[in-house]
């Protein structure tokens, strides 16, 4: 089959694209074809990177201006949605031609209210007395960001290998179940207990993710389908365990809910630490917990893994062209498995943070809180680079924290945040659209500006 496709691929380079021989980030779809032709032995010559990979190339290489513009566009879309559905604006628009200014004032009030409560909910609340109270929103942002970053890193690692891990939900659920189970089943000294529980969660996520890698490597099944299906398998499995006495169900309860996490395994919050430093006096009520530190460690580790280690080099090589990687002697199948194991473990960290940090009072089947899917947008916005993921996770954490404030104070459903996130990613995925909206120079003039940059990347990768 692969020989059929080569002519199709040779057409792929378009204006603004380097020849296929140059290192080129490649998309998840690329691997589907790699899998299809996986049965045919690799020939002596290297076929060009399979399938169209514009999106990952764009996502990895387009500049920060595009990101900023995409965010601006998404906020504009959200503003329009908020304004159109706002009752005051609708009322004022009813007599628009009599008093047009009223409509504009209502629009201004609505948008101003929304964004000021977003800021107050996500960064700093000036209405609260003192710095400790005022800064709490920022710590909330970081606390929401922690699981997003962890899971986003997981998705990003898979992306770099050309795999599309949509299985975050399942991996988080399994990891959360393992972490919770360890926390209430095995009494241990405080700090060690937390580490063991986190380790168990990583293992759970790694197994659930590694299963996908294994199936893909052994049978050539498409990881997108596998992960989607395994999400539901995990979900129903957890539902079953949550209502089975003796499994995950809280003793003496009939609800499908787990017991609370054991206090000795719970991640200490910033307030706990500050209180300890302060000699026992309570400082603030920050929910930000040690999970964020773990996430920073994870980010550093992933950055080292991807950019510095030989394993990471193999990952990137497979991600850019599995055919070439195979010819170069890289065990592509093992890379698939290993990448999914690491990806699952990182997503599992998000599950651990959920159970041991965010929601310690016992969990239901919704413990993943949509993080598995949010992680995809985080990874795409972060261009699958570790620190990019870190900051995009913080941005989405801020949107989430602010979203709750908007909902509480303005009556705007928090789901507007989901709309913003997905619109950002849609725009990022299609730079030509953003350029068209802002009348930026056509892509034809782009290569000159961009080629050196990519060459720099190429030499970097070769080093």
């Amino acid at each position, binding site marked *: 089959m692969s020989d059929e496709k080569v002519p199709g691929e040779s057409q792929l380079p378009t204006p603004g694209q380097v020849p296929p021989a140059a290192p080129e980030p490649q998309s*998840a779809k690329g691997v589907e074809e790699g899998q299809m032709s996986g049965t045919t032995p690799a020939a002596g010559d290297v076929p060009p990177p399979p399938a169209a990979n514009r*999106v990952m190339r764009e996502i990895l290489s387009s500049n920060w201006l595009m990101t900023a513009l995409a965010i601006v566009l998404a906020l504009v879309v959200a503003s329009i*949605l908020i304004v159109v559905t706002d009752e005051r604006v609708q009322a004022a628009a009813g007599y628009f031609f009599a008093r047009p200014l009223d409509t504009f004032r209502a629009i201004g009030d609505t948008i101003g209210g929304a964004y000021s409560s977003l800021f107050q909910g996500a960064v700093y609340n000036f209405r609260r007395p003192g710095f400790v109270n005022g800064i709490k929103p920022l710590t909330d942002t970081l606390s929401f960001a922690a699981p997003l970053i962890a899971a986003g890193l997981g998705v990003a690692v898979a992306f770099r290998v050309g795999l599309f891990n949509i299985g975050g939900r399942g991996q988080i659920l399994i990891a959360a179940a393992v972490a919770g189970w360890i926390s209430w089943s095995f009494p241990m000294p405080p700090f060690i207990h937390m580490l063991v529980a986190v380790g168990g969660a990583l293992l759970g996520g790694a197994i659930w993710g590694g299963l996908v890698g294994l199936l893909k490597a052994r*049978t*050539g099944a498409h990881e997108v389908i596998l992960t*989607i299906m395994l999400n539901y398998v995990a979900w*129903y499995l957890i539902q079953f365990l949550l209502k089975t006495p003796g499994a995950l169900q809280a003793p003496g309860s009939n609800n499908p809910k787990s017991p609370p996490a054991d206090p000795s395994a719970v991640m200490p919050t910033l307030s706990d630490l500050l209180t300890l430093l302060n000699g026992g006096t309570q400082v603030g009520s920050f929910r930000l917990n040690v999970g964020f530190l773990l996430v920073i460690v994870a980010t550093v580790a992933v950055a080292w893994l991807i950019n510095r280690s030989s394993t990471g080099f193999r990952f990137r090589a497979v991600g850019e062209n599995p055919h070439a990687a195979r010819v170069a002697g890289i065990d592509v199948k093992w890379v698939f498995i290993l990448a999914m194991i690491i990806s699952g473990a990182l997503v599992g960290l998000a599950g651990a943070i959920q159970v041991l940090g965010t929601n310690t009072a016992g969990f239901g089947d919704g413990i993943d809180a949509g993080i598995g899917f949010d992680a995809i947008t985080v990874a795409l916005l972060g261009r699958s680079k570790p620190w990019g993921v870190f900051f995009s996770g913080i941005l989405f954490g801020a949107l989430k924290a602010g979203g709750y404030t908007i909902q509480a104070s303005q009556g705007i*459903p928090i789901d*507007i945040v989901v709309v913003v996130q*997905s619109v950002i990613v849609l725009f990022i995925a299609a730079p030509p659209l953003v350029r068209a909206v802002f009348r930026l120079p056509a892509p034809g003039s782009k290569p000159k500006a961009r080629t050196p940059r990519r060459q720099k990347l190429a030499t970097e990768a070769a080093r």
Partner: protein
Amino acid sequence: MSDQNSTAPGSSTPVVETSHAAALDAPIVLEKVIVRSPKFPIVFGVFALLGLLAAFVFPRTGTTRIGLSDSKDAIQLDPIPIDSQPFVAVVAVLLALLAIAAALFVARSATARIPLGLTVAFAVLFVIAFLVWAVHDGLLPFTGLLVGALGVSTPLIFGALGGVLSERVGVVNVAIEGQLLFGAFAAALIGVYTGNAAAALIGAAVAGMLVSFVLAAFSIKYLVDQVIVGVVLNVLVTGLTTFLAGVIDVDTIPRTARFGVVPIPLLSEIPVLGPLLFRHSLIVYFMYIAVFAVWFGLNKTRWGLRLRAVGEHPKAADTVGINVGRTRFWNVSLAGAIAGIGGAYLALDAIGLFSKEMTNGAGFIALAAVIFGRWDPVRAVLAALLFGFATSLQNSLSAAGVTDVPKEFLLMLPYLITVLAVAGLVGQVRGPAAAGKPYIKS
């Protein structure tokens, strides 16, 4: 083509393969390589073993009455009484024999393939044995189970048809979930504001089409990875509909905007078949037409030939003068419209209200059905029916008072089956050759 495929598999390999992606070079490959894979007999053996375990290790005694009529039927049939334990034992032995037969087929027959009839017989026997074993003492509303299965399957079938059309034209459609959900929302919205069922249905189709427009525009014009667009679109539609449902009242759809049951005279009075097929709302009757139309159109018309050509080999299609981009765009839009109607069924027929995330993974089951059905409309519909049956089975069992069979595992079944299917247990799963790849005219 698919008919020949299912009635005479293996006997005429070239005919079988012409309906598939690989087309020209495939028969040659198949003549050389006959894989005698033990996968199928092993799976059969496992299920036969389960049957034997149920019959002899965990026997459940009593009398299962299989109900065939409900109170509304003109012709009343008495429930068929079955002595559970001996029945399950006999069927389990039969299953074991069939598993041995399957092993022999793989080991001895020239094509190394198990006849489809054997597989179907095995599956049907296993399901019946399971039902009798699970209920073991009580009434099993068999017709109700099948009717429920069709009801659950309807949105899945619309979604699967949309998926088949979209993928056969070369655009991977992960956004079925979004199309269903947006269709459901639009149907509810228009139903609430106009009170007109027809307008709501059209609105749902247009909404599904809008999702498709985005999918098509991004994947065809902007060449964005189709899977990414699909996944992001699902998230977008989920967020958008939940947001809008929070600020607009779409909870109570007036009765005039719903599709009531329209029994077809005479036909609906046939025992078992009548309630199953001819006592439904107009959307379900429309589904019958849609299934036939998609099958016929895809396999017997010029439109279908062009569609498939674009999905298999866009360059060749372009060479003979087919506008690849336009063909893809409009067929993906059509696929969205069909899936949107499936969403309308969810809002207007099955439930009669819109609730957030009401599709609850139906779009992904539909996607699973497309893959399990190997991108063939008829097979995909059968797969959707199978998946609907698993869900309905769970409902019927809890209605029959069976609580010791965890419903989660029945609900999990479609997804597990799909994992097994894509992992290569159910023959080779190979999609349209050009699906997922944008076509760039040089």
